[in-house]
């Protein structure tokens, strides 16, 4: 709770200065799959309240990086820190409980539950220390409805989640991570499969959420990232290629060569 208040008092992004302790940090993070270096010696710091974009071509290691941070993969070497405390190799469950929530690229909502129940499921975890003390009714409904209105799904709260359109399911997924109350949200390709109008809406949504939280967003769509992120990290072949503002990245010839050139061609 105190950490939330602290995050709220900072507005906008704070560039990482020496002495500033980042809310999320990786040091020398590496993951090998046999001979392949999926992520290689990545040093990555995100400040509190920032919206960080992570881009790179397919296979650059973006999702692997997320997997390493959230405990789905154990690093071959390197360390991960959250608010200065080491979380390297923790299980996904433990990482989630610390306060890092992840929105997955492939939507995984609960299709046989109602939209409201989906969010309630995500929210009620906050209320209960242990997973088993879930027999007492908990008053998270208000929180859930607030979250649903934030992601513009309140009208659909009674519908089955399985009946939502793809774009709506993406928003519901976003709602799920919001409802966890996590301070740091990792959004894995939030606009995947969305139409152009939906993307614009998503950009607005992401910006509105960032006021109280720290976001790390991976994306293929550079235009989207340009709109939402203040700082962008570029990954290529598992290594950190460049980092900086959108303009700086766009001008960087190395980035152009490996990524933007291909992206422009694909966008037409």
């Amino acid at each position, binding site marked *: 709770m105190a950490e939330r208040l602290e995050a709220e008092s900072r507005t906008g992004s704070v560039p990482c200065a020496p002495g500033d302790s980042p809310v999320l940090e990786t040091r020398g993070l590496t993951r090998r799959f046999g001979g392949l270096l999926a992520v290689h010696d990545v040093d990555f710091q995100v400040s509190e309240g920032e919206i960080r974009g992570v881009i790179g071509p397919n296979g650059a290691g973006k999702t692997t990086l997320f997997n390493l941070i959230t405990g789905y993969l154990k690093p071959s070497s390197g360390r991960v820190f959250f608010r200065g405390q080491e979380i390297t190799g923790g299980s*996904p469950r433990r990482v989630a409980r610390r306060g890092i929530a992840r929105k997955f690229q492939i939507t995984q909502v*609960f299709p046989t539950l109602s939209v409201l*129940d989906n969010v309630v499921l995500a929210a*009620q975890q906050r209320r209960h220390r242990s*997973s*088993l003390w879930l027999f007492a009714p908990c008053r998270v409904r208000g929180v859930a409805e607030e979250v649903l209105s934030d992601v513009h799904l309140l009208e659909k709260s009674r*519908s089955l989640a399985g009946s939502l359109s793809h774009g709506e399911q993406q928003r519901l997924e976003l709602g799920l991570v919001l409802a966890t109350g996590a301070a740091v949200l990792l959004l894995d390709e939030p606009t995947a499969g969305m139409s152009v109008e939906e993307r614009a809406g998503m950009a607005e949504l992401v910006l509105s959420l960032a006021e109280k939280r720290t976001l790390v967003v991976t994306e293929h769509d550079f235009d989207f990232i340009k709109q939402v992120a203040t700082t962008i990290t570029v990954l290529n072949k598992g290594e950190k290629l460049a980092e900086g503002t959108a303009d700086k990245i766009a001008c960087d010839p190395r980035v152009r060569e490996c990524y933007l050139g291909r992206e422009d061609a694909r966008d037409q």
Partner: protein
Amino acid sequence: MIGLIPGLRKKLAVQGFVLALVVGAAIAVLPLVLGRFHTELLGTYLTYSFVALGLGVSFGYCGVISLGQFAFFGVGAYTVALLVTRVAGFGLEHVPLLVLTGTILAGLFGFLVAYVSFFLKIGSLFVLVTITVGILLQKFTIAQLDLLGGINGITLPRWIVPGPGGGFLRILIGILAVTFLVLWLAVRAPFGKVMAGIRDAEGRVESLGYNTILIKSFTFGLSAAAAGLGGALYAMLTGFVSPSVFGFVQSFNAVIWVVVGGLGTLVGPLLGTVLVNFAQFYLSAWLLNYWTLAVGLLFIVAVLFFPRGLVGTISRPETNRQADLTGRSLRRGQEKRR
């Protein structure tokens, strides 16, 4: 469509409970209309329905399938039988304690089996574990002639077996109602939502911070306890237990009862058990050797044409329950298990 008429959803949500009351009342009234022989049969089938209820929660709500629920039925039955015959000093006043012990032991055993399996990340092979447990218990009991009565079984003393007449049956129905209520409350509670979430997408639930291993194991333990309760009551009702109570064929049948009755509901398993067992009884008299074929066909027809089971087809499911639960849970259970 449900949203068209305000208040209709609320009415339909109540409908499930009303259906439960109707079924319960019907079962309570049956002993008055059936003859004595059929009443005894009903009693036996009602003890089976405890197993089905548990399976209904574990499989229908949480997505954890078990083809060995009768293993826990047997644990409950044998606990009561052993305590009463091997340990001196028990009297009628101890019966609730005995039954409770059987229930708790079965539940603990189920919880342990599940926890160890899920902890070791057995995933979808858990169903094999459930089959094995039943077989192992059966073999073990047969082998232990002195300790557990072996293949001869154990006969319970006269005083514990209730006499003819509806008295015990009414108690049985009462206990069944209480069990039903407890499970119903569990399913309604936040815990129930997590169970359903696990059924749909276990990985997602875990990424939200839940200990899905613990929750699945607890649910399974609950279903095992229900089965054990049925077994304990069965031991008293029939006055005799033998290794066949661990019967894994019956465990297969339990799945049929649940699916035909209505997977994903609580009333369904109850209804399914009573109906299928009575149907089986009459079919075996009529079709002689081919009755197993008929039951198998019934199962196939049910899955193909009435995937929501009897209850699901009769009553409109609530919005946040199931639309296509059987197919969903079976498919998702296979996809999402790690």
